[in-house]
């Protein structure tokens, strides 16, 4: 109990000393992360999304909700929160028909899905399999490092997470935008902090520099979900090319 009170106090302190965002106009325009709940190990990295929301709010002009929502995959309430985070250490069980239908509508009409493998790659593989059911006919492929996702806020050259198991991200394009992104590098593991503010997991092999890349990728993912290909607009290209050199 004391530990929880201390953690809450710390959070209040941090929120007071850090520069404040303009208050968002209700919750509707804030970025609220939703963690998908399913039968199995759906939340292997508690606190990861809370930390990402905090970092996004501090680093960018995006207004975020400090706490993520947790919703089942067949919930109609998902449609109020177009950023869905799905994590696991073991293969995702085959989704029910209702879940597939719901996620198909969700992704088709504007939702964004981030699948984060916190294990050995089996979860990522199962997500790829289920995406084939959710969006049949769409091709799942590697996201090249010159994709706008890698420059939506930070200029990144590669993806990273708690690990560097897979040096690339995969994704599915729907309606001209990435509707789903799959990481096999345990992004949540790099983001997660415990209630005392300590990092929950060590980041290997790159240490804290790699953790920073993981956060930057998280920020870019949030920025991409909201701005899509904004940084591909012609007006940005000369600046970005100059900085890339």
């Amino acid at each position, binding site marked *: 109990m004391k530990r929880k009170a201390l953690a809450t106090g710390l959070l209040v302190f941090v929120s007071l000393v850090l520069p404040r965002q303009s208050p968002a106009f209700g919750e509707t325009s804030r970025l609220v992360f939703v963690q998908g709940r399913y039968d199995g190990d759906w939340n292997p990295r508690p606190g990861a999304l809370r930390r990402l929301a905090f970092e996004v709010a501090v680093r960018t002009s995006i207004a975020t909700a400090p706490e993520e929502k947790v919703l089942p995959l067949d919930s109609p309430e998902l449609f109020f929160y177009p950023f869905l985070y799905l994590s696991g250490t073991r293969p995702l069980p085959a989704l029910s028909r209702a879940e597939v239908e719901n996620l198909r509508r969700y992704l088709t009409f504007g939702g964004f899905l981030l699948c984060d493998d916190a294990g050995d790659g089996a979860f990522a593989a199962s997500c790829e399999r289920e995406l084939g059911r959710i969006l049949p006919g769409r091709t799942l492929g590697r996201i090249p490092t010159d994709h706008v996702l890698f420059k939506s806020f930070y200029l990144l050259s590669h993806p990273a997470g708690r690990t560097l198991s897979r040096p690339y991200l995969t994704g599915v394009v729907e309606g001209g935008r990435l509707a789903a992104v799959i990481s096999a590098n345990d992004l949540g593991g790099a983001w997660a902090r415990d209630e005392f503010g300590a990092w929950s997991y060590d980041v290997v092999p790159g240490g804290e520099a790699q953790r920073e890349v993981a956060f930057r990728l998280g920020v870019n993912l949030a920025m991409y979900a*909201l701005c899509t290909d904004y940084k591909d607009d012609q007006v940005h290209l000369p600046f970005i090319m100059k900085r890339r050199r």
Partner: protein
Amino acid sequence: METFDDWKLVLLAPWPRWALFVLAALALLGVILAARGLRQERRRARRAVLLGLRTASMLALLFFVLEPGVRHLQTATVKGRLAVLVDGSASMELPTGEGRASRAAEAAEYLRAVMPALSELERTHTLEFYRYGEKLQPLSGPGAAVEPTDEATDILGALEALPRRQGGRRLAGVLLLGDGADNASLSRGMTREARERLRSLGVAISTVWTGDGRARDLAIESVRVEDFAFVRNTVEVEVTVSAAGMGSLEVPLSLQREGEVVAQKSVILGPKQERQTVKLSFVPDRIGEFVFTVSAPVYEHEATVANNSETFVLKVIRDRVRVLHVVGRPSWDQRFLRTLLRNDPNVDLISFYILRTQQDQPRAPEHELSLIPFPVDEIFDKQLWSFDLVVFQNFNYRPYRMDRYLPNLQRYVEEGGAFVMIGGENAFGEGGYDQSPIASILPVEAVGAAPNEEVFSPRLTEAGLRHPITRLGSSAEATRRAWEQLPPIPGINVTRARPGAQVLLEHPHVVAGGQNAPVVAVAEVGRGRTMAVTTDASWYWAMVAARSGEGGARHYERFWLQAIRWLVRDPDLTRVRVQAVQRTVPPRTPLAATISARRADYAPAEGARLEVDLFDAVTGAPVERKVLETGPDGTARVEFAPPGVGAFKVVARAELGGVELGTGQDVIAVRATTAERGEARARPELLQEIAEITGGGSISSTARRLPPMRLLEPEVVEVGRSEDRPVWDRFGPILLLAACLGGEWVLRRRWGHA
């Protein structure tokens, strides 16, 4: 007793031609068989004698079969026709030279002078008189007046329209009288095709020119431009200008849009370069139909000043709607609007999103970020007028020192631009806009109340039920149902409608200033339009509505795309339309237009009262007003008396049952001159060339005599009766045949042949 003055040989045999050929073949066969039978004869003389006798026999036989005879004839000489063509086109009104009589008067004088000579020709030729211009028309006689009224000159067409043969008489020659100012197939001079057509007439054309081709005149000969142009894209107007008898001079040309100069260029003309084509370019900055005038100065002693300007109508359309999307911070509302605009091929989207504020800490040096400075000066000072629509979405202008640019935005809207403000914690009163220069262009004003975050279902107003922005269904009932089915949304900026604004959607119970707080409101500001959307949750109508199917998402698209079309004044959303029957008309032509009026539900407005005004487009002065009523199809036709030269606007205001339906307008240009009247210069060289090609002579009318004429000789034709006298039934030929046959028979027997 009949007398014959001519004869000719004829064949009197009644047999058909093929039978004659068969007989000739048989005769030839007889000769060949004889030659074969004489192969054993060694003496060549004998062989030749026998073969000669056989050949003579066969020829004599054919002679009898063909029955030759002599036809005695009576003949007569037929007079050819000489066509005299006189120019009746309007250019003949012009003087032959400075201070001299008109070309038409000169032509009449010339005809009078040469009439005796023409009468001389009447001995051998019949004279026919015609006038030509737009087409060939016969004249009653040599003295008939030729009024120069035709608005075109087609010399070749007139020559080809002349009957080659009439009443059995062939055309023997043509005398062509005029100024040579052709504006049909010979307008650009003599082409190869024109030469061929002249030669194929098969008759010599002698020409007489009036006017000396040295008239002092500056003319805008032609203006070439597409019928339509794209706004903000360069338009090139190709102008051909010519000067005759003016010496060397630099001519400043100007292109004006309804009185406003949009392009200027000078062109140097002289005796060696009498004609030049130049391009005047400009960039149209707004859409619509406009009257443009290309003009050159008027110099002293010009033959005509009517051709110193030329008028045309240009329709300026947009290629794509150019939208500037400025966003205070990334949000779902911005994301869904961006996706919609990006996916619309008719939209050219330019976005500026504030991704980091002064308070944010990216924890990275600048070169590791993809951020660019917000180019406030570039956008709001230099580029603003290049946009059709500006959208401020939850954008706080104050941190970017935009106070000095907001007056530009106000002016941009008043001059025809479109502006939308979308709600959020940085919009409307919350963003300090109620104290800004653009407060007056917004459809709503702040009331000092805090934003209301309560979830609510917006309610359609009566205006919203009919307005093209909020009409989501095919009928009022379908529209109401569609809005009721959309999910409730959370939160609005609490405002009230400004006077003159139309509220289309309102909060069901939040009241501000005695009215329900607007959710969507629109206003007409000067020539522009604005819209306020006081929520930042319209994306619910896309994403949240999609929970149960895609119908809701379509409503979101429809709402925003209809809003854009209304804001940028899509012509299809205009309820009163005026369409000129002809946008460019020659002088002295009545101006006609069709007006269509639609009711609020866009059905034809039958019985609508139309007040239609004709204005001078440059000065704005009223010219004429007509009041009429639409028919069952909601349309009416209006016609104004010819108003003179210039640019005119037809403006219609429609009203039905005391309710105004709206206004519409179109433009009509009345040209200063036609191509016919604009070409002041006579072209004697063209007439000389016509004569040369066809073998005729050419002369100036001042010579007062006929040019050399090469007329076809009169034709000789058979007339009256004829008489055939056979020559085959005489004694001589019979004797020859008998002698040949008998001689051959006797000699064959003597020389031992069968």
